[in-house]
C-alpha cells in the first residue's frame, strides 16, 4: 500500500540530478532564495527605513545615496522594495497554501465519493471558474474593503477551483489502484483509505503545481494592489508602489524598480517551475 515509499527516493534523486543540470531551474532557485533571504533579513539589508519620509529629498533620481532613487515622500525606493518582499512572498504562499487545502478537501471528496457529492462540488467549481476571475477578485476585494487580508481572500476565492479539479482527477486515477482495493479488503474504513492511502499518492503533483503557481499568485495580487484593491499606503507593496509612479510619470524610477522586483520574483518561480516540470516529466528527461 505504500509502494511510493520505495519508489520515491530513487525518483527524487533522479529528479534532483536532472535539476542540477538545468541552468534555468538553478537560476530560478537562486532568484527565489535571494528574495527569501532579502525578505527575512530586510531590516538589515535595507539601507533606510521603508516608511521614513524625507520630503526635502523627494523624487531624487537614482544616485549613490539612493540606488533606486526616492519617491514623492522622499522614501528610499530600494529599502521599500526589499521590505516589499515581506508582503508579496507570504501572500503568494498563503494564496497557494489555502487554495491547495480547499482544493484538496473538495477535490478528494468529489473524486473519492463520486455520485451526487461529485456533481454538486464540481458544479460549484465550474460556477466559480466560469466567472471571469479578475472581475470576481476585484468585486470581492472592493466589497470587503481595502486591506491585505481581504484582498488575499479575494485571490484565494478565484484560485482554489483549479486545485479542486486537479486533485479530483488525481484521486479518481489513484482510487482504482490495486493497493486501494487491498486496503478496502483489509477492512479499512473509507475515511482512513482516503486519508492514508489515496491522498498521499496525490499530494506530490498538487504540491508541484502549487510551487509553479506561486509566481502567478504574486502577479495577480500585485495587479489588484496596482488597481488600489490590495495593500493600502504606506505599506511598501510592489503593485501599490508601481501605481504611485503614475502621478509622477516623468520620474520613471518610482514605477520602474518596483515593477522589476515583481518581474524578477515571478520569473524566478517560473524558471523554477519550468525546470521542475522538465525534471518530473520522464518523457522530456529521456530526450535531454
Amino acid at each position, binding site marked *: 500500500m505504500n509502494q511510493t515509499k520505495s519508489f520515491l527516493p530513487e525518483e527524487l534523486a533522479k529528479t534532483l540530478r536532472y535539476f542540477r543540470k538545468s541552468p*534555468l531551474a538553478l537560476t530560478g532557485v537562486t532568484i527565489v532564495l535571494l528574495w527569501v533571504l532579502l525578505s527575512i533579513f530586510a531590516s538589515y539589508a535595507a539601507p533606510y527605513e521603508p516608511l521614513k519620509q524625507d520630503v526635502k529629498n523627494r523624487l531624487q533620481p537614482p544616485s549613490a545615496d539612493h540606488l533606486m532613487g526616492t519617491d514623492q515622500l522622499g522614501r528610499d525606493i530600494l529599502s521599500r522594495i526589499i521590505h516589499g518582499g515581506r508582503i508579496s512572498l507570504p501572500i503568494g504562499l498563503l494564496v497557494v497554501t489555502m487554495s491547495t487545502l480547499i482544493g484538496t478537501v473538495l477535490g478528494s471528496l468529489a473524486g473519492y465519493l463520486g455520485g451526487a457529492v461529485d456533481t454538486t462540488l464540481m*458544479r460549484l467549481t*465550474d*460556477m*466559480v471558474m*466560469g*466567472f*471571469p*476571475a*479578475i*472581475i*470576481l477578485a*476585484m*468585486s*470581492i*476585494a*472592493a*466589497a*470587503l*474593503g481595502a486591506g491585505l487580508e481581504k484582498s488575499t481572500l479575494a485571490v484565494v476565492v478565484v484560485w482554489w477551483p483549479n486545485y479542486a479539479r486537479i486533485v479530483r482527477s488525481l484521486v479518481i486515477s489513484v482510487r482504482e489502484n490495486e493497493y486501494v482495493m487491498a486496503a478496502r479488503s483489509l477492512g479499512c474504513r473509507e475515511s482512513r483509505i482516503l486519508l492514508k492511502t489515496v491522498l498521499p499518492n496525490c499530494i506530490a503533483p498538487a504540491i508541484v503545481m502549487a510551487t509553479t503557481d506561486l*509566481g502567478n499568485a504574486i*502577479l*495577480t495580487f*500585485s*495587479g489588484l494592489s*496596482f*488597481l*488600489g*484593491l490590495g495593500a493600502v499606503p504606506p505599506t511598501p507593496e510592489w*503593485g501599490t508602489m*508601481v*501605481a504611485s*509612479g*503614475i502621478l509622477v*510619470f*516623468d520620474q*520613471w524610477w518610482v*514605477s*520602474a524598480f*518596483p*515593477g522589476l522586483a*515583481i*518581474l524578477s520574483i*515571478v*520569473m524566478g518561480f*517560473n*524558471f523554477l517551475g*519550468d525546470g521542475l516540470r522538465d525534471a518530473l516529466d520522464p518523457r522530456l528527461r529521456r530526450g*535531454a
Partner: protein
Amino acid sequence: MNMQQFILRRLLLMIPLLIGISLISFIISHSVPGDPVAAHLSQKAMENPVIVATFRQQWGLDKPLWQQYWIYLKNLVRGNMGDSIRTHRPVLDDLRQFLPASAELAIGATLCSLFVGVPFGIISAIQKDKIIDHIVRVISLIGVSTPVFWLALISLYIFYFRLGWLPGPGRLDAGMELDVKASLTGIYIIDSLLRWDLNTFVIALKHLLLPTLVLGSGTLGIVTRMTRSSMLEVLAQDYIRTARGKGLRERAVIVSHALKNALIPTVTVIGLSFGGIMAGTVLIETIFTWPGIGRYAYQSCITLDFPAIMGVSILIAIIFSVVNLLVDVSYAFLDPRLRVGSN
C-alpha cells in the same frame, strides 16, 4: 453527433453556466459588508433617511434577497440587465458602447501573439537545445512573468513620453471624436477604413499599437511555449520520418506536415488564455484610458455597482464560452479525422 448538434449542445450548456454566474455575483454582492448605498450617496445624503430609503426602493434593495434575484433573472431573460447605479443607464447600453473598444484590443492582442508566437515556437522546436531555442524559451518565460500594468507604464514612458514615436493614452488624439452614432462597428480602425478616412485610420492604428502589444505579451509567451512543445511532439512522429524519407524538403515537412498537427494545442491554449487577456484589459484599459469593458468592469467594481458587475461578468462569460466553442469547432478544420468522425 454532427456539427450542428454539437454546437447546439454547447450553446445549451451555457445556460446553467450563466445562471451560476448570476447566482454567484448575486450572493457575493449581497453577503459582503460593502454597501452600495454608501458608495453612491454623498455623506450629506446618507444622513437623510428619506433619501436613503428612496434609493433603496429605486434599486430594489428593500426587497428580500430571493425576490431581488428572481426579478433580475426574469429581466435578464428579456434581455434587460437592469440599470447601472453609477452611470444611470441600462447596463446593456453601457456594454454595447464599451465592447467594441475592448474587442479591438483583445483581437489585436490575440493576433499579435499568434503571428509572433507560432513562428517563435517553430524556430525554437526546430533548433531544440541550441542557443536560439534557449533564447526564445527565456524570452517567453520573461513574457509570462512581466506584470502587464508595469510594462504598459514603461512602454508609455519610453515610446510616448521620451521618444514621442507613439501617441499617449486614448483611442484617438485629444479633441478628435469619431461620430459614435454614425459608426458601424465601433471598432475605429474598421470604421475609418469603411469610410475611407485614412487619416483617422492611421491615428487609430497608432493609438492601438502600444496597448495591443503590451496586452499580447503575456499570451505571446504562452503561445510560443505551447507551439514549441507540441511541435517537438509532432516532429518525433513516424509520419514526419516518412515525409522526410520520401525526400520532401524540410520546409515542406515543417509547414505542411508538422505545423498543422501541432496547431491544435496552440489554438486550445489561445481559447483558454482568453481569461488572461480579459484580466489584462482591465489593467491596460485603466492605464491607457481606453473606454472598453475592462475599464467599465473596474469602475463598476470599485463603486460596487452590482447590476453592472453582473452584466459585464455575464457578457465576458458568454464571450469566453463562444471563443472556446469556436476553438473546438476549429479542430475539425485542423484535424480531418475529427471531421470524418463528425459526419
